[in-house]
């Protein structure tokens, strides 16, 4: 654990993560294909990880909970992708489409 001066201010990392998160929100709201929605969710998860790691190394280096959080986010994201793709595959086999606006059985 060694402290080194960093010429990039903390704000730049947070702004990068904010941009990534907003792009992910746009993707989730505008995409039709369910696989592409899952990809946009991945972007948002990565934005959150960047945010947590940046705060951990800049402001809380003795505890570094943010890094542990990022590790767990990556683990859960892997589980989430596997499960989401299985569900999408099942929906595609039953209904012949993976577009979320055509899966409207619960709509009345």
């Amino acid at each position: 654990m060694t402290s080194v001066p960093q010429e990039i201010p903390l704000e730049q990392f947070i702004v990068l993560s904010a941009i990534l998160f907003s792009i992910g929100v746009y993707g989730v709201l505008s995409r039709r294909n369910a696989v592409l929605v899952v990809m946009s969710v991945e972007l948002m998860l990565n934005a959150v990880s960047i945010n947590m790691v940046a705060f951990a190394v800049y402001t809380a280096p003795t505890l570094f909970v943010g890094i542990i959080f990022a590790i767990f986010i990556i683990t859960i994201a892997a589980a989430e992708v596997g499960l989401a793709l299985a569900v999408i595959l099942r929906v595609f086999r039953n209904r012949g489409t993976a577009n979320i606006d055509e899966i409207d059985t619960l709509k009345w």
Partner: protein
Amino acid sequence: MTQAFFDLVAAVVIVGALGVVMARSTVYAALFLIASLLGVAGVYVLLATEFLALVQLLIYGGAVTVLLLFALMLTHVRDLRERAPEPAQRLGALLAGGGLLAGFITMVYRTRWPRDNGTITSIDFNTIGNALFNRWAVPFEIASGVLLVALVGAVVIAMQEEGEHL
């Protein structure tokens, strides 16, 4: 020098992310996603957490994107190109994303971050390993249980049923 590297990595991340949400072809979107996630690994290197960079490369660069490409292949997405979103839907998404971004950026620059003295602390592999297996051992085991359940669940859900064919 560091700043130039950060700009490069940030450009890769943002261009990749824009490609994911804009590309008409879904396979191109998946390839843009790989670029963006590898850029995020570069951000971790800049934050002096090499362990996370390696994990990012292995899990996202390897496993997750391959899974996504398989799903694209199995849902025959390449035959039917993604239709353009409705203008109203796209406008709403743009407003939501843009509003969120504007809010975040004003928030970031109007806040004084306490305890930020311009230095970063590089946390080496040993420290992370010790913390993960001592202090965070129970969450670690729970996470492995979650992974196991998700794996079995995914197999059960996607299993081919009698008389069913792709």
